[in-house]
């Protein structure tokens, strides 16, 4: 079975959503947290509804609707989302009120919208879509699980034109807690210098990326989604290379046939060493993306958006290039991301 990426949209800290250029005009930030560029939500959501919606719902709904528009699909065969933290803003709001109001006279809206499946549900509600609707909440592979579900639906011939998204929001509270847990750098850093300042910690991010996946070949498709794989645990370089080689050979490929590797380097010394130590990547053209998106649990959805567009546009934006080897017009792109050295994800996309 073949799976294609018909459309891809991404709301991020860069001009990835409502922009004609492909990362030609990029933004420098200094700090330890990247915030998304907000689109004009009134184009996607009734203003009265939007007023009650948290940031993640708005991002998710806008990215999803634009993805369907780009794909020229009115009604997706299924809606599947991945989100590690779900609706943090509403969760924090409701938790705060429980404490501050001592459990009395609480307004229900924040609770109603705090449910982890809210974004997928709101998309279904707006489209009046009664089809399959699922939501995965598994840390660094939440998005990959959604892809897995879509792949199975296509393979089972139970649905087509499947809308898949990765969404997560960062709120002040989660940023403070995650900072205390040591995830982020202790000093402000320029995102464009992220890989030149190898210290402990990364920069936080958030975003929404949606994809329309189907099994129909078309000249309009962005790319073919050849395969994906996730695995868990701490891996030595050799064992990791074995996993990558096994994955590629399952796809009938080997590392020499990969034109570009997109890695999940995030500026944290220990995190990046895992990529740097892989000998099989040494002579490959490489690209990074987390200086643009920031680190978050479903950031691999940004990477997939990037890979799809690199293939469709036939160009690698200079701002993502890494290392000395260039491949200007890659046909086969491997994404390798790990989340906190525990959740590993491989995705392979190629020109149709």
């Amino acid at each position: 079975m073949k799976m294609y990426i018909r459309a891809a949209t991404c709301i991020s800290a860069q001009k990835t959503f409502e922009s004609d250029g492909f990362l030609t005009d990029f933004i420098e930030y200094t700090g330890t947290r990247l915030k998304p560029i907000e689109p004009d939500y009134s184009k996607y959501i009734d203003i009265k509804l939007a007023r009650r919606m948290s940031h993640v719902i708005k991002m998710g709904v806008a990215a999803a609707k634009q993805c369907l528009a780009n794909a020229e699909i009115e009604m997706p065969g299924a809606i599947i989302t991945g989100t590690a933290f779900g609706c943090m803003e509403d969760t924090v709001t409701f938790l705060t009120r429980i404490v501050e109001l001592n459990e009395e006279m609480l307004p229900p809206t924040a609770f109603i919208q705090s449910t982890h499946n809210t974004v997928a549900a709101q998309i279904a509600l707006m489209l009046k879509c009664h089809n399959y609707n699922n939501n995965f909440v598994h840390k660094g592979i939440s998005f990959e699980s959604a892809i897995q579900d879509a792949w199975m639906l296509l393979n089972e011939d139970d649905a087509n034109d499947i809308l898949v998204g990765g969404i997560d929001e960062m709120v002040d509270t989660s940023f403070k807690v995650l900072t205390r847990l040591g995830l982020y750098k202790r000093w402000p850093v320029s995102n464009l210098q992220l890989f030149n300042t190898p210290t402990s910690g990364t920069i936080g991010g958030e975003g929404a990326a949606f994809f329309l996946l189907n099994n129909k070949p078309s000249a309009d498709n962005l790319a073919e989604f050849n395969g994906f794989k996730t695995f868990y645990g701490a891996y030595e370089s050799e064992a990791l290379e074995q996993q990558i080689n096994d994955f590629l050979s399952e796809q009938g490929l080997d590392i020499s046939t990969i034109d570009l590797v997109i890695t999940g380097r995030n500026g944290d010394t220990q995190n990046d060493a895992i990529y740097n130590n892989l000998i099989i990547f040494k002579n490959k053209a490489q690209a990074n993306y987390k200086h643009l998106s920031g680190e978050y649990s479903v950031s691999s959805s940004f990477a997939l958006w990037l890979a799809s567009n690199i293939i469709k546009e036939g160009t690698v934006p200079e701002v993502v290039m890494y290392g000395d080897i260039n491949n200007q017009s890659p046909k086969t792109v491997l994404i390798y991301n790990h989340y906190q050295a525990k959740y590993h994800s491989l995705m392979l996309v190629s020109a149709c």
Partner: protein
Amino acid sequence: MSSDVYIAGLGAITAIGNNVAECFAALQNERAGMGPITAMNTIHRDKIPVAEVKLSNEELAKMGGLSAELSRTALLSMVAVREAISDAAIADLDKLRVGFISANTVGGMDKSEDFFVEFLADNSKGKLKDVYDHECGSMTEVVAVALGISNQMTTISTACSSSANAIFYGARMIKNGLLDVVIAGGADALAKFTLNGFNTLMILDKAFCKPFDENREGLNLGEGAGYVVLVSDQVAKTLNKKPYCKLSGYNNSNDAYHQTASSPEGTGSYLAMQGALKKAGLQTSDISYINLHGTGTPNNDSAEGIAVKRLFEPDFPPMSSTKSYTGHTLGASGAVEAVFSILSIKHNMVFPNLRFETQMHELPFVPETELRTNLQINHVMSNSFGFGGNCTSLIFSKI
């Protein structure tokens, strides 16, 4: 692709029992698990009944072999997972491709809400270990690591249909040839967050809930965990005992009506039940028992009832909501009720719907009010519907 998926093991822990045998005994003896709140520190303590698992975190931790400092959701999950694996007794499990697909709705919220009190007063305060496992995925990860499962694990959260979706996602992983064995289900512990959340929606009954009764006044929150061990055709042949049944049908449809309320005509429920029948290749007349979602809220039971009426009329199979025993265990409910549905097939029984008195005016049927035995139970439908319009029906079939 078309191979059957069998149920080889069961595990459950709820307010009516710490394992499947205890739950089964309570179901037959009409022993409900609700009572006053004893564990949570809340102003609702003496006002709202809940269905608590009757073990402390320390006791659960000891049974499951985990730290008592973890979220109660992870502790409940571990206990039921261990029971399910032990029940399946699959030889050479370590040589098979084993996955763990779990579900919950609020992750480690029971710990996070403790953290939050101190954190809110001073952002540099609050014990970080209480918030470290806040994510839903952490609940699954803790259990998977303890079991040594790294092939495949993931977590589903679709509100109250979460673990029903986990079960059929697991079955599909087997059907797609990706795994041989999947432990699938879900867990949720009581939390102030959910208690207050449902309370603000004014859908908590101040007395014990009365699902499908004309005078029902809401649901009782419960807690627990339920898991099934799903095996492929190939693995089923190697088992020392006959599998319980097979998962023959499943469907996930969305009501697409409102974030929390069900449509008056029960569109999502109807589509889920209809889709599950189609997947199983069955007619409504083939269904021997429906384990209803039956929360006891005016809205759910009306929508679900109308959907059942539209789909099954004029001949209705026996039906009941076992939430009248366990309360609504949220992310665990789909799997807990899957376990009860499978017990119904195994023992040819239909469990009663407790405290039912008055028929709902809009429905032409009433739920079962007494234990029925010596029936021929071939196919059981189990319904699970949630916020966000997420509706899932599963069908289990005798082999």
